[in-house]
């Protein structure tokens, strides 16, 4: 650890051996870089916002003219869409963060990380935590729009959503990183990402309530892991609205397994477990590319 001097004024650094402290430093700096990159990249911040705002205010407003008066007595369709749009924003941002690994590979920076005397685990964990925080940060902008769609600014709601957003984005980043580990260029990553993300969002209940669906569609939504990330967010939003039980049944039916209502805690547990498993896959992928 000490430094010696080999020539006048030259600090000679002694790099210490591998330790948990060193791994934590590595995680922290990889994470720090993700945040720096996000803050510096305004274009990305804006471009990721365009889609949810379109969904919320253009699609949401348009569709609400069809739906109001039927199932959604007194509930703005945009209020229903709101948690789904949060989920979409968070997922897209997290995928972008994961995709930056491919970008790093293309521009050589990944090599700088991979030749360092740190475990692959530290790099992947740093990347996933970074992706999680960045995506949550992006979600905060959508949270700020709550008032426009009649969702109250309640501290408990905001805290619950923040936690759920982070959990979802960490898991999605881990998913993205495990995909990106082997990808050599951005085009193929975005191709695969579109292919994976679109159906997941469509089948997650982000855009329509998961009630009274045909059996085949209901089955697909239950298999879709994203369903278990979106439902808790909707649950949180609806528990802060004052609406009739019929409306809640129609718009926030929850997820049922053979007639059993899956509790929110279990849903969150599923997402967390998936996140941990995907993180393991991502680390294994990077170990294998050695």
């Amino acid at each position, binding site marked *: *650890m000490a*430094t010696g001097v*080999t*020539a006048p*004024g*030259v*600090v*000679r*650094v*002694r*790099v*210490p*051996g*591998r*330790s948990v402290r*060193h791994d934590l*430093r*590595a995680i*922290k*700096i*990889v994470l720090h*870089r993700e945040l*720096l*990159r996000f803050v*510096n*990249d305004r274009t990305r911040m804006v471009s990721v916002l365009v889609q949810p705002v379109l969904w919320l205010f253009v699609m949401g407003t348009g569709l609400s003219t069809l739906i109001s008066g039927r199932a959604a007595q007194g509930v703005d369709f945009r209020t229903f869409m709101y948690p789904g749009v949060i989920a979409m924003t968070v997922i897209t941002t997290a995928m972008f963060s994961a995709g930056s690994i491919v970008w*790093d590979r293309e*521009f*050589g*920076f990944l*090599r*700088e*990380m*991979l*030749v*360092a*005397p*740190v475990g692959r685990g530290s790099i992947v964990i740093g990347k996933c935590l970074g992706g999680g925080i960045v995506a949550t940060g992006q979600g905060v902008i959508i949270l700020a729009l709550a008032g426009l769609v009649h969702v109250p600014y309640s501290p408990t709601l905001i805290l619950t959503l923040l936690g759920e957003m982070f959990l979802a984005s960490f898991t999605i980043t881990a998913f993205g990183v495990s995909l990106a580990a082997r990808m050599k260029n951005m085009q193929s990553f975005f191709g695969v990402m579109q292919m994976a993300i679109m159906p997941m969002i469509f089948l997650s209940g982000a855009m329509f309530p998961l009630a009274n669906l045909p059996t085949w569609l209901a089955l697909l939504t239950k298999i879709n892991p994203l369903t278990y990330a979106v439902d808790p967010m909707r649950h949180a939003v609806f528990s802060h609205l004052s609406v009739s039980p019929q409306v809640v049944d129609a718009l926030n039916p929850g997820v049922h397994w053979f007639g059993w209502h899956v509790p929110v805690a279990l849903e969150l547990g599923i997402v967390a477990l998936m996140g941990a498993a995907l993180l393991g896959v991502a680390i294994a992928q990077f170990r294998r*590319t*050695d």
Partner: protein
Amino acid sequence: MTTSEAPAVAVRGLRKNYGTLEAVKGVEFDVRPGEVFGFLGPNGAGKTTTISMLCTLVNPTGGSALVAGHDVVRERDEVRRNIGLVFQDPTLDGYLSAAQNLRFHAELYGVPRDVVGERIKQVLEMVALWDRRDAKVNTFSGGMKRRLEIARGLLHSPRVLFLDEPTVGLDPQTRSAIWGYINKLRHTEDITIFMTTHYMDEAEYCDRIAIIDHGEIVVIDSPEALKASVGKDRVQIQTADDETAITALKERFDLDAAVREGMVTFAVASGEAFVPRLFSELGVPIRSVSVSRPSLDDVFMNYTGSTIRDAEGESGASSVMRAMARR
């Protein structure tokens, strides 16, 4: 400067195959502590593959290598802690500033916190980039980026600094500046430098060079000793009819000539004394003649049978191999 006796790099029978392609065919050499050791060869000769194995980036197919006393396969982290790397292709984050790139490196290598700031200043001053420390790397020229990479490679005071074609694609002024830093390094840091190059003039700066061709080391020695070993001068002539001239040289003087860089080229002892005979006996009109003392080009030609530029033309496999080694 104190140097221990053990070699900085010790390589025994190191091999690497990519499928059926034998990129490196059992090379052996030692690099002495504190020396500047050059790997000279055309693109595709196996330079980058060898350096990638020494840097733990590519697993060898066979053989062994110790870097700073540690095995490149079994003690990968130990090797990584003790080496600095400057690759052919840039590995900087262009969206971060120069200082941020170095800070990232320091954290990743676990440089003790109390010396990070001072050390960053020192290496940036060495490559004359301290004034630009807060500028984004994207705004840097190719030469500045390479200088920054050298600074970064030195940040954690490695025992061995690997430079893979450190000056390729740079203008002559920057190239000489980079050689200035490398020479300065030898005095200020207790370090061994291992580099690859396909520039003959740069190989002259090395203490010793290994000529590598088709995955094998042909010869290892100091540039002076290698040049002395050639013994003959190089003669280049421009003639009205190169084909006839080559035949005539073979028939009348028993000299093997070939067209190199557009001129009929051959090696002969005491070249100046040979020129008058050449004019009177060749039988082909000569437009111009030049005689030169052996250079590393001649050394290369003497040991491999072709000039480095001609060797590069023939190796189509080079880019494939580099792409594989790079991953």
